[in-house]
């Protein structure tokens, strides 16, 4: 039986009718047109469907859409503020950390959650945080570089300024 639910998606209120068996990932992609979460393994192993619920990354392929009734959902579309990429997204571009880009939304959300909880993670903690996000192109090192580079440069504001100047 269809049920009406409302939730916050990337800061906007969404009202939608869903069947209880509809999966969050499918509702986001096929019914709401939010295409950043991808369907990879479809069983919670690969992390390409990662979205945030109430600030925590989860596997949207393993969540019923109806479960997020009344919750806050964020995909990478909601990460930008005032139309500007976050420093982490920028770092991914600078470190050349994507190739096909399939895993990137999930990895950036996982890394965002990590940096919010722990702004100065060790390399080990970075690896732990993205262990559930598989990338088949880069070999991971550029991804780890993008995250650790950011935590190093954000040590001083001056460095940040310098970085902006260098950017083409």
């Amino acid at each position, binding site marked *: *039986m269809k*049920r009406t639910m409302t939730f916050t998606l990337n800061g906007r209120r969404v009202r939608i009718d869903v*069947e*209880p*068996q*509809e*999966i969050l990932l*499918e509702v986001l992609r096929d019914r709401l047109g939010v295409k950043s979460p991808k369907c990879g393994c*479809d*069983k*919670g*192993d690969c*992390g390409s469907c*990662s979205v945030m619920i109430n600030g*925590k*990354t*989860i*596997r949207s*392929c*393993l*969540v*019923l859409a*109806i*479960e997020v*009734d009344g919750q806050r959902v964020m995909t990478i579309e909601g990460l930008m503020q005032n139309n500007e990429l976050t420093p982490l997204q920028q770092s991914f571009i600078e470190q050349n950390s994507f190739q096909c880009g399939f895993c990137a939304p*999930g990895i950036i959300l*996982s890394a965002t*959650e*990590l940096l919010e909880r722990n702004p100065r993670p060790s390399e080990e903690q970075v*690896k*732990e*945080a993205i*262990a*559930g*996000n598989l990338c088949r192109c880069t070999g991971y090192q550029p991804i780890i570089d993008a995250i650790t580079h950011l935590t190093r440069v954000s040590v001083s504001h001056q460095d940040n300024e310098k970085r902006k100047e260098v950017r083409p």
Partner: protein
Amino acid sequence: MPIIQGFEYYKPTSASEVLKILSKYKNPAILAGGTDLINNLKTETDQPDAVVDIKGIKTLRGIALKNGVLTIGAAVTFSDLIDSKIINTKFPVIAEVARTVGSVGVRNRATMIGNICSAVACADSSPLLIAYEATVVVQEKKGKRKIPVEKWFKGNKRTAIKKNEMVIAVEIPLPAKKYAGCFVKMGRYSGEDLAQASVLILALPENRYRVAFGAVGPVPVRAKKLESLLNGHEVSDDLIAKSKKIIPTIISPITDIRASKEYRLHMCQVMFERGLKAAVSRSKGNGPAYGHSLI
């Protein structure tokens, strides 16, 4: 992959409401984290006529230590356990186990109670709860029923739960004021993987030990024979050699897609030795930090 079969969805706010809903349906399922259940719905391994989401029940979200007994509610996720101060100070082995479950995105959702209700042979929580001599708290219509974890696991994916019952918590007694432990899990790689074999060791005061194996049989194995060999003695190379020799009489792992029985058996001996040494040195205030991988 969509879920083919439809069902009713409920999100009650109390355990008594859950029981009422359960009694109305033939084959209801309880949903906590959903990291097992949703997969089973997709593959049609489970075909419930109703799904009861228990995340709306506030009383199931608690982690509390009272009179030497830790209570973990049915909606507590593995991430909650890793972040809990009580867990990290009094039960650091629980955090060590929780950190090996899946990945952050899974741990943010998956619960320990869900782990033992799914009761797959490789569940990471099983050897932990067996070694801690935990109790499963089940709510039924008439009241609460407490089941020792030893009697909880009935086989692969089979537990002592009956129809119209729900697990509301596990209770874990603090084994001693000062003690240490170690969880060693073997997967194909570090990061997210299921256990091919796991060992959990507690080193208690006065040279008392508890040892449990996971993923080497349909249910977790408490190695009492091994414990009685170790109890009362300082750990020495000689004692470890003797202990390793009797491990094949205690567990009988199988060969499957992830590992052969010979490899599992051999690695259980290696993991037992490393885990025991780590637990003992942790109890003396040194040894590897909790969460440090030993294999």
